[in-house]
């Protein structure tokens, strides 16, 4: 019998994608090892990675909201 607190399979897939995406982006190091385009003086290498910190936080936030409602709490 599934635990009523566990989340539905569809939500699980979405959450998995949200949580795995940052790993894919950050571990593909050669994809962002570039100087251009620059943003406010920052080479691409730096602003791209800083930007993804914010995106990672947003993704985790969405994952939280999804599992909270899906999991009753």
């Amino acid at each position, binding site marked *: 019998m599934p*635990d009523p*607190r*566990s989340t539905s399979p569809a939500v699980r897939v979405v959450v998995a994608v949200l*949580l*795995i995406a*940052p*790993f894919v982006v*950050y*571990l593909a*190091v*050669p994809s962002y*090892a*570039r*100087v251009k385009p*620059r943003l*406010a*003086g*920052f*080479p691409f*290498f*730096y602003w791209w*990675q*800083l930007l*993804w*910190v*914010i995106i*990672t*936080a*947003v*993704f*985790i*936030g969405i*994952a*939280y909201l999804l*599992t*909270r409602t899906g*999991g009753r*709490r």
Partner: protein
Amino acid sequence: MSDVNGVELTVFIIFFALVTVMGFAAARWRRGQTLMHLDEWGLAGRGFGTFTTWFLLGGDLYTAYTFIAVPAAVFAGGAMGFWALPYAAIAYPIVFLIGPRLWSVSHVHGYVTTADFVRGRFGSKSLGLAVALTGIMAMMPYIALQLVGIQAVLTVIGVKGSGLAKDLPLLIAFALLAAYTYTSGLRAPALIAFVKDSLIYLVIIVAIIYIPTKLGGWGHIFDSAQASLAKPNPATGKPSGSLITSDMTHWAYGTLALGSALALFIYPHTVTGTLASGRRNVIKRNAALLPAYSLLLGLLALLGYMALAQPDVAAAVKAAKNPQLAVPTLFDHVFPSWFAGVAFAAIGVGALVPAAIMSIAASNLFTRNVYKEFFRPDASPAEQTRVAQLVSLLVKLGALVFVLAFDKTLSINLQLLGGIWIVQTFPSLGLGLYTRWFHRWALLAGWAVAMVYGTLTAYNQHSPAQRHFAQSTADVPFLHHTAYIALTAFVLNMVVVLVLTAILRAARVPDGTDETDDGDYLADAGDPGVRERPELVAE
């Protein structure tokens, strides 16, 4: 810099003393409400909300690592040192996945340490012991890194000498830490966390807004740093680094980030912070909020470039042959003395408090999972406290050995060495929260093989400056790439675990009893069977 900067030193001492006294005063003020007992610490461990947990966990990230070691790595090697940013980002999906489950099962079964959980989950005292010992070992170099941080600040202020007095700043740092932990336990650090973090935020925000304007903007900082990094290093004849990673360093960059991310939230001191929150959702919410710290960590890392962009700072740091001085020297040159003093106090307290929390986390592991489990099952609370105090002192002496024995050209290697060890408990701990399939003996064997491989490989790394433990990356067998040793050892660990589990299961070798149920991993505050954990931060 040969003389002591009086203003800086005075401001440093005043702020330092103020923060410490405030912590003790607060502890005294609250003490009347509870009994003089180990559980007295308990107030720190009951029902922390999102906000407090954010501070508590964030405080674990903002240490000398962030302020001294990461900028030093960027100063010395350019883009290669920036891997700390992806690390601090991808650590949080991992927290989101393992934190809530660890919280739930710990609150159902009364686990206080990671070793408690592993022992209960796999029914193996020896596996619990392995996890406990690994935790204690891994804390020592991490504490050592904090000592190096305080040492760097004191050196720039001008507290230094020659001959025997050469190690004076280090001895002062050590004495401060020992006295602080011994008398205050965990209570004062927890209460100081707010003041400490506020002070640190102030300094960070001023540093990343004020210094770039003074140095001519970010674009100029990157360009000057690029020019400086491209100059051949006199020792090797090669450029010391570049603004972006190269084909040679992509692998090291990615594996250092991933390996450190696996390590971050299974360190004994961060687990304590996770378990101290009031509900499991608090952890999930924090996993989304804590990356705010990472953003600042990234900008702080760039202080290394600012130090490179300022010719007199870069020259002074290079003359001292100690990249750890990059940030303190930069502050010393661009800030007025009084504010440099404030900044140094922030760094000093920011290193001291985590170091105290770390040494207490390590001594908790020893007292609970080694001493009580194997030697004195009926030890009284008073006896446990005495043992814990003694061990916390021994752990710090161990840290001192790391500081003295290691070449300090890059102190970040100290933390990375701790990571090599702690990551080897991830299969039992992180994966153990999701699956019970692994056999206890397979986990133990995988851990042992990986610990030996990781330690030996790290030991064999040499550089012109140091014969052993010179770096934390090494060639990966068969792949011909340079990668973080922790991750290579982790892969080896997993191979051993999987193969041996299959064999042991086929041979029907008896497995330990799992005292946890599937439902335990989803339990929340208010559910039947979920206990409050007032003793969490207690012993």
